[in-house]
């Protein structure tokens, strides 16, 4: 068991090191996220009245779009430079690769969110730091990264890989998006946790179900 976690850690560490040296994935996600916020600002006329009800939706749309870029990139790099074959040659269980990549993607998403949130708060003078809201962000990102990592591992092996990931990913992650947006909105409006627990439950249920299924089927994604 310990060896398993060490192997997962090694996959994550490899991703961090590569990212630290190139910094291309994180910076692309970040710039993209800021651009999306900028576009929303003009498209929706985010003024004081609209902010309270719209900001949760704007934030999650931003996270999800930026997350798609990161997910696509994270696996495309492995495929293009032949690293995927190297990973497959490693004498570890296939699920190690899945959890390593998924946790890596999750951390990148959380990093981008950690930078975007203060910027959002700064630009709109809007307090976005509730403990409950941070929990929703983590839960939502887990579900998104769990399904996204599995799908992007499939997509990079397809001919139409540049366009396929969002098409496959968005309809499947709709429960995450709905629950995360509604829960975030509730926290922004200062509703008590008891009223929002139903959304948190959906997020937890989604995370558990899809992590488990992804764990079961990941072997078939990389069966070469």
């Amino acid at each position: 068991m310990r060896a398993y976690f060490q192997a997962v850690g090694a996959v994550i560490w490899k991703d961090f090191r590569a990212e630290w040296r190139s910094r291309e994935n994180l910076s692309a996600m970040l710039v993209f996220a800021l651009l999306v916020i900028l576009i929303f600002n003009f498209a929706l006329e985010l003024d004081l009245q609209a902010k309270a009800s719209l900001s949760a939706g704007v934030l999650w749309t931003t996270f999800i779009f930026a997350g798609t870029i990161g997910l696509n990139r994270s696996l495309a790099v492995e495929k293009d430079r032949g690293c995927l074959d190297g990973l497959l040659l490693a004498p570890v269980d296939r699920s190690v690769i899945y959890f390593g990549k998924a946790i890596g993607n999750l951390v990148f998403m959380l990093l981008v969110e950690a930078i975007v949130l203060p910027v959002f708060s700064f630009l709109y003078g809007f307090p976005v730091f509730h403990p409950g809201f941070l929990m929703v962000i983590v839960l939502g990102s887990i579900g998104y990264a769990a399904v996204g990592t599995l799908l992007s591992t499939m997509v990079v092996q397809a001919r139409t890989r540049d366009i396929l990931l969002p098409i496959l990913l968005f309809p499947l992650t709709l429960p995450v998006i709905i629950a995360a947006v509604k829960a975030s909105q509730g926290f922004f409006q200062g509703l008590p946790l008891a009223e929002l627990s139903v959304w948190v439950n959906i997020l937890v249920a989604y995370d558990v179900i899809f992590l488990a299924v992804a764990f079961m089927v990941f072997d078939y994604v990389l069966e070469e």
Partner: protein
Amino acid sequence: MKAKPKALTGLDILSVVMILVAAGLVFFYAPVEVMMGAVQKVFYFHVATAWVGMLGFLVAAVAGVLYLRRNEQRWDILGHSAVEISLVFFLIAIIMGSIWARPIWNTWWTWDPRLTTAAIVELIYAAYLLLRSGVDDSERRARFSAIYAIFGFLSVPLTFISIRLLRTIHPVVIGGAEAASQGGFNMDAPMRTAFFFSLAAFSVFFVDLLWHRIRLGELSASVDSLRVKSYQEGR
């Protein structure tokens, strides 16, 4: 080429006859509903096509599991066939629902949980077909689409639940026709006969189409292998 099985021809005839009888029952046997009038008759085929659609998506998910476990091509053909047919049936169900909703709800479309989930289901399985067309290697395509069929089928109930909660916590007035949307009329005996006969007719029709589509899939697979063979011999 394998000859068309006799049983399949029998099933063709049976499904045509059953659908004609079902249409006859709907139009001439079942009474006109008092409140909604003739447009209510959409209901019989609407529910039947939606049922067949969901059945096909379930078949695709089960075929996906079987493919991953057994690694036999026929499960892939079954899953692909079921999704293709069900996508069409489900679209028909949505369109029929719209035709009914226009006079009853006074709008073609509302963002009611069932309608929204139906739209998302169509998108999921359209994505399934896009995934298939994007992967060239047939064995890899079979694995990926099996996984996607399983994931898609699992996400649908969660989507439905979350949209339903969304609407109950934030009540959006859906044309004030919430009761009618949930089958808010009582079926009398002739209506029930027409209804269940339509369900049966479309189920038979579905099996018939599925059989045809599987045969088509098998034939195209054997054409592919013949092509590969002749190419190798030609070299």
